[in-house]
C-alpha cells in the first residue's frame, strides 16, 4: 500500500479569498431579513404559526446561544402584524354568585371605554343618589310616610288613652308597659278609697278596665305588622327614587352597548343591585360605602387597545401565576381580603389570540407550570386558581373567576435534549407540540453563501451598534466560523459566539482608535478569548515541558506511542498528547484494557479495544488460537477516557509490543479503526493537532514532527497560522491515513506487508514479525498447557 503524501498548507486550511467579498465595509451591505441557512426552521415556523388546528404548537429546538429567541420573536412579530387584533376581556362582579366573577368579551379597545363608562357611572351614583334622597320631594314623601307610621303606631294608644280618660280611668306607664286604674282630677284614686265605692260603680270600672286592657293588647300586637308595612313602603319609595335617578345614566350606557348582549345583561343586573341597596346610598355625609361602589368597577384583564396585529408575548419567568394569572389579596389589619378587582391576568391572557414564547427549561423548572400550560392547551380555557388551591392546601373562600376561552399558539424554545426527553417521557407532549422547528448548527460554505454570510455579519454588527467591519475582517470571521464549525465546508450558525467575537473585536478596535473593525481586531478578539480560557491548558503543557507528564517527541520506543485527546472545559476545548503503552506476553487471547479495569474507561473506549482485539485475532492468528495476554494503558491519565479516537494508536502500540519493533515518537496518532483495519474519522482534530504542535514546540525546535490522522478528517482541518507556517516550511507534517498498514509504516519505517494467498506475510515485513512473535507465544502457551496436563495427570495418580 502506497504511503500518503503529507498535507500541504492549502489542504489544512480553507481561507476566505477577499475577492469573493464584493464590498469595502459592512456598511455597504443591506440587512438580512431572514437568517441564512435556516430554511427548515423558517418553514416550520411559517407552518406552525399559520396552522389553525389544535395541538399545532411549536417547539423550536437548537443549542443555547443559537439565536432562537431573536429569530422566533422577529418572525412571529412580522407574521402576527398581518393578523386581526384579539378581543379585550374583563371581569365584572357577579350579582348572583358573588364569589364567581363573570367574564365579558369586548372588541379590542372597547374594554377601556366600558371600564371608564362604569367608573363614571359609579361616580355618578356616589353623588346623584344621595342628592335624590336629599331632594325636597323625597324628604316630603318620607316625612309623610313617617308621620303616617307614627300616627298609625300611636293613634290606637292615644285613642285608648282618650277613651280611658273619658271614663275617668288613667292609663299609667309602668316600667315594662301600661296599666289602668280609676282616677279623679288626673290622679289615681287611692285603693283604700275605692273600697268605699258601691258594687255597681266597681263593676262598671272593672269591666271598663278589662275592655281597655283587651283593646290595648290588640293595638300593641298590631304595631309590629304596621311597622313592617311602613318599612316596606319606605323601601318601595327608595327604590322608586333610585330607579328614577338611574334611568338616565344606565339608559345611556345600555344604548351604547346594545351590540353586546353580555354587557346589557350586566347593566341590568347593576340597576337591580343599586335599587336593592338603595338605603346604603342614603348617607349623604359619608356617601355610599366604598365596598358597594367597588362592585360596579370593571377589572380590565386584557386590554388590546394599543395592540397592533396579534400579540406576541415573551414570558421570561413562566411560573404558574405568571402564566395563568392570579388572585391577589389586600392586607387590612392583619387580615387578607380579595375581590374580583384583584384578579390579575397572566401571560396566557395577554397572548390570547396570538403567540406566547416560553423558554422550555424555565417552564419545566417551575412547579406546576408545565402542567398548567398543558391543562390550558387541552381545555382551551384559562382558569385562574392559586397553586395552594390546586394542591388542596387551603380551603378558605376565594374568588372563582369564570374561565376565559383561549386560543393561543405556544412556542417553546429549548435544546434538543429537552425535546427528545419530553417526546419520550411525556405522553401529552407530542399531542400538544406537533410542530418541531429544528435549528441548523452549521451552514454550507460555498461561493453563494459568502454574500449571505457577510450580510448576516453586517446585520449583526448594526444590531450591536458597533463599528463597520472591513472586508478582510469579514473574511477572517468567515474563516473562524469554519473553524468553529470544525469543517472546511461549513460555517457555524451559532449566533452567540459570533456576536461575542464581534463585540469584542469592536472593543479592541475602539482601544486602538480605529474607525472600523479590521482583521487584526477580529484576530485579537479570538486570541484574547483563547488566552482567557488558557489557564488549565497552560498548566497541562507546563507539566509536559517539565517532564512531570512524560511525552516524548523524538526518537523511537517499543510499545509506546503518542495518542491525542481533547479536553472540553466550559466553552473552550484544547488537545494534548497522551502516552499510550502496551505489554504483550503469551496468554489466552485477551487484551486487558487497564482503563476499563480501573473503571476509568467509558463504554465506547471499551468497544474500540474489543474491536482491536478481534482485529488482531483475525489478522494474525488466522485459524489458530491467539495466544496473547496484552494490556493497554493511558499513562498518567486520571480523569477517565472515553471515545474510540485512540484505537489506531492503541493498535499500533500493541503491535509494537508484540513485535518489539520501536515506534517513532515524533508522531502523534489519532483515528478510530474498524475490524478490517480501516481508519475512520474522529472529532476535535484541529485541537488535537494544535495541542501536539504546541507540546513539540515547547520541547524544542519543530523538526519533522507530525500527526497521523484519518484521511476522512482532512476536510475538517482549519489549523491556526503557526501550524500552517511549519507545514509550509516542511517542519511539521500531517499524514492522512486510511488503513492501519499506512500508520504502521509511517510509525515504524518498515513495510507493513500484505498476506499472500496462503495467509503468510512477506519476509522482513512488520506484520510477519508480529505473526511470528504470536506464533511463538502460541508455542510457549501450548507447551505450558501440555506440562500442565501432565502435572495434573501425575497429580491425579499421586492422589490415588
Amino acid at each position, binding site marked *: 500500500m502506497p504511503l500518503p503524501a503529507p498535507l500541504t498548507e492549502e489542504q489544512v486550511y480553507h481561507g476566505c479569498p477577499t475577492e469573493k467579498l464584493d464590498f469595502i465595509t459592512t456598511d455597504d451591505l443591506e440587512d438580512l431579513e431572514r437568517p441564512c441557512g435556516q430554511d427548515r426552521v423558517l418553514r416550520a415556523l411559517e407552518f406552525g404559526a399559520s396552522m389553525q388546528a389544535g395541538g399545532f404548537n411549536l417547539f423550536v429546538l437548537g443549542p443555547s446561544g443559537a439565536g432562537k429567541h431573536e429569530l422566533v420573536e422577529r418572525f412571529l412579530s412580522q407574521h402576527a402584524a398581518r393578523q386581526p387584533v384579539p378581543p379585550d376581556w374583563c371581569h365584572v362582579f357577579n350579582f348572583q354568585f358573588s364569589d364567581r366573577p363573570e367574564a365579558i368579551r369586548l372588541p379590542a379597545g372597547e374594554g377601556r371605554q366600558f371600564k371608564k363608562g362604569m367608573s363614571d357611572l359609579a361616580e355618578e351614583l356616589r353623588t346623584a343618589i344621595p342628592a335624590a334622597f336629599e331632594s*325636597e320631594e323625597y*324628604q*316630603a314623601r318620607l*316625612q309623610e310616610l*313617617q*308621620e303616617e*307610621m*307614627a300616627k298609625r*303606631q*300611636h293613634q290606637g*294608644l*292615644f285613642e285608648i288613652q282618650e277613651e280611658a280618660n273619658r271614663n275617668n280611668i*288613667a292609663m*299609667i*306607664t*309602668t*316600667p*315594662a*308597659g*301600661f*296599666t*289602668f*286604674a*280609676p*282616677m279623679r282630677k288626673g*290622679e*289615681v*284614686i*287611692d*285603693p283604700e278609697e*275605692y273600697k268605699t265605692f258601691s258594687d255597681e260603680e266597681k263593676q262598671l270600672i*272593672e269591666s271598663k*278596665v*278589662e275592655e281597655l*286592657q283587651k283593646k*290595648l*293588647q*290588640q*293595638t*300593641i*300586637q298590631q304595631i309590629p305588622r304596621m311597622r313592617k308595612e311602613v318599612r316596606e313602603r319606605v323601601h318601595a319609595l327608595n327604590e322608586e327614587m333610585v330607579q328614577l335617578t338611574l334611568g338616565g345614566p344606565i339608559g345611556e350606557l345600555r344604548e351604547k352597548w346594545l351590540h353586546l348582549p353580555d354587557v346589557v345583561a350586566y347593566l341590568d343586573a347593576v340597576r337591580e343591585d343599586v335599587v336593592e341597596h338603595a338605603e346604603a346610598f342614603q348617607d349623604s*355625609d359619608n356617601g355610599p360605602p366604598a365596598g358597594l361602589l367597588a362592585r360596579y368597577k370593571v377589572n380590565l384583564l386584557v386590554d388590546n387597545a394599543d395592540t397592533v396585529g396579534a400579540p406576541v408575548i415573551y414570558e421570561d419567568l413562566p411560573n404558574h401565576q405568571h402564566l395563568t394569572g392570579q388572585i391577589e389579596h389586600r392586607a387590612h389589619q392583619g387580615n387578607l381580603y380579595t375581590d374580583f378587582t384583584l384578579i390579575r391576568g397572566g401571560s396566557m391572557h395577554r397572548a390570547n389570540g396570538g403567540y406566547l414564547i416560553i423558554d422550555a427549561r424555565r417552564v419545566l423548572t417551575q412547579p406546576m407550570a408545565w402542567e398548567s400550560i398543558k391543562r390550558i392547551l387541552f381545555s382551551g380555557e384559562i382558569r385562574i386558581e392559586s397553586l395552594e388551591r390546586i394542591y388542596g392546601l387551603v380551603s378558605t373562600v376565594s374568588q372563582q373567576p369564570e374561565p376565559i376561552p383561549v386560543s393561543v399558539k405556544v412556542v417553546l424554545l429549548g435544546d434538543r435534549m429537552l425535546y427528545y426527553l419530553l417526546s419520550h417521557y411525556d405522553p401529552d407532549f407530542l399531542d400538544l407540540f406537533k410542530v418541531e422547528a429544528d435549528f441548523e448548527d452549521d451552514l454550507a460554505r460555498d461561493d453563494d453563501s459568502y454574500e449571505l454570510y457577510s450580510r448576516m455579519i453586517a446585520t449583526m454588527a448594526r444590531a450591536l451598534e458597533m463599528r463597520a467591519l472591513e472586508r478582510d475582517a469579514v473574511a477572517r470571521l468567515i474563516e473562524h466560523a469554519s473553524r468553529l464549525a470544525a469543517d472546511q465546508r461549513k460555517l457555524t450558525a451559532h449566533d452567540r459566539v459570533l456576536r461575542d467575537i464581534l463585540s469584542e473585536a469592536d472593543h479592541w478596535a475602539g482601544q486602538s482608535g480605529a474607525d472600523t473593525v479590521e482583521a487584526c481586531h477580529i484576530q485579537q478578539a479570538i486570541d484574547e478569548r483563547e488566552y482567557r480560557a488558557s489557564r488549565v491548558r497552560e498548566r497541562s503543557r507546563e507539566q509536559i515541558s517539565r517532564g512531570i507528564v512524560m511525552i516524548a517527541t523524538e526518537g523511537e520506543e517499543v510499545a509506546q506511542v503518542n495518542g491525542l485527546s481533547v479536553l472540553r472545559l466550559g466553552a473552550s476545548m484544547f488537545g494534548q498528547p497522551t502516552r499510550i503503552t502496551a505489554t504483550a506476553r503469551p496468554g489466552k487471547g485477551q487484551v486487558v484494557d487497564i482503563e476499563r479495569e480501573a473503571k476509568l474507561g467509558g463504554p465506547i473506549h471499551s468497544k474500540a479495544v474489543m474491536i482491536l482485539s478481534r482485529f488482531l485475532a483475525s489478522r494474525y492468528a488466522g485459524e489458530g488460537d491467539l495466544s496473547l495476554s496484552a494490556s493497554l494503558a493511558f499513562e498518567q491519565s486520571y480523569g477517565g477516557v472515553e471515545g474510540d479516537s485512540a484505537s489506531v494508536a492503541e493498535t499500533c502500540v500493541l503491535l509494537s509490543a508484540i513485535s518489539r519493533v520501536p515506534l517513532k515518537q515524533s508522531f502523534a496518532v489519532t483515528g478510530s479503526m474498524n475490524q478490517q483495519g480501516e481508519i475512520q474519522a474522529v472529532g476535535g482534530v484541529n485541537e488535537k493537532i494544535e495541542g501536539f504542535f504546541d507540546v513539540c514546540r515547547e520541547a524544542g525546535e519543530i523538526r519533522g514532527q507530525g500527526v497521523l490522522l484519518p484521511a476522512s478528517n482532512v476536510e475538517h482541518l482549519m489549523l491556526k497560522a503557526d501550524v500552517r507556517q511549519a507545514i509550509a516550511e516542511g517542519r511539521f507534517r500531517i499524514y492522512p491515513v486510511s488503513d492501519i498498514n499506512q500508520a504502521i509504516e509511517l510509525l515504524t519505517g518498515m513495510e507493513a506487508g500484505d498476506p499472500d494467498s496462503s495467509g503468510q506475510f512477506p519476509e522482513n515485513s512488520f506484520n510477519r514479525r508480529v505473526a511470528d512473535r504470536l506464533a511463538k507465544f502460541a508455542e510457549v502457551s501450548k507447551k505450558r498447557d501440555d506440562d500442565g496436563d501432565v502435572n495434573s495427570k501425575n497429580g491425579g495418580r499421586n492422589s490415588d
Partner: protein
Amino acid sequence: MGRVLVLLDGSRMSYAALNAAAEIAARTGAEVLGVFVEELNLLRSAGYGFAREVGSSSGISRPFDPVELEQRLERLAGQARRTLAGVVANYGGRHTLSIARGSVVDEVLALVGPQDLLVLGRVGWSSAPGARLGSTARGLLRRSPTSVLLWCERQVSPQGRVVVFLNDHDDANRRAIMAAAQAVRHSLQPVTVLLGEGADIPSDRLELIKRDLGVAESDMRVRTLPATDPVTISQILRQERATQLVVSRECALLRQPGAEQLLALLNLPVTVTP
C-alpha cells in the same frame, strides 16, 4: 350656674340623659342631682286587685302586684344610684341622688332652682322618634323655672351647627342666647340664628348677639324661616345639620298648636329656656 338635675327612671333614654348631664356638669363644675321619683299614680294603680300590666312590646297582660312593683322600683332606684355614681365618676364631679315619692312634675319642681339646668330623656313610649311628648315632659317644659334640656341621642356630625331660634321677646332671647353660648363654648360649633317668618334683626343687635355667643363672624349665620310649620322647620334644621336647638318657651314656635308635634319630630337635643 346651679346644679344639673337629671330625671332618672331606669329607662335607656334616661341614662343617655344622665351621661349628657354629667358631661355638662363636669364642664361647668356643677353638681349632678339625680332625681328618682316613685310615681304615686303608679303605686296606687298597683294596689287594685284587678290591675294588670300590658307589655309595651308584646301586648301580653300580666297581674300587677304592689309587692312586686315595690321591689321593681327599689331595684330601679338601686340601679339608678349605681349608674349615677359610675357615670359621674367617669367625668369626675359631685353627685347626689334624691329619691322621692309623689307626682314626678311636682317633685322635680320642688327640687329645681332658677339657676339649675334640668335634663330629661324622652321617657316611656314617647322615646320612639315621632311619638308624642309624654305628659311629664310637657308639664316640666311648661312650668320649669329654669332651662330644660330635652336630651336625645343621635350621631354627632363634625360639620354640625348649634341652632338658636329668636323671636321678638328680648328677655327670652337673651336667655336663649346665653344657653346657646354655653353649648357653643363646649362644642366649638358654628351657630345659625333662626328668625321667625318675616322677622328681621338690626345689625347692631346682631353684633351684640355675636358678642354674647362669643363666635367669629364667619361662624354665625342668620336665616329667616319661610314658614313656621313643623315640617319646614325640621327641613331647615336638617339643612343646617343642626346638632342642638335652643329655643325659648315664650317663643311663638312653642306657643302654636303644633309645638308639641314639632318637638316630637325633632330628633336632636333641644334646650327650652324659660
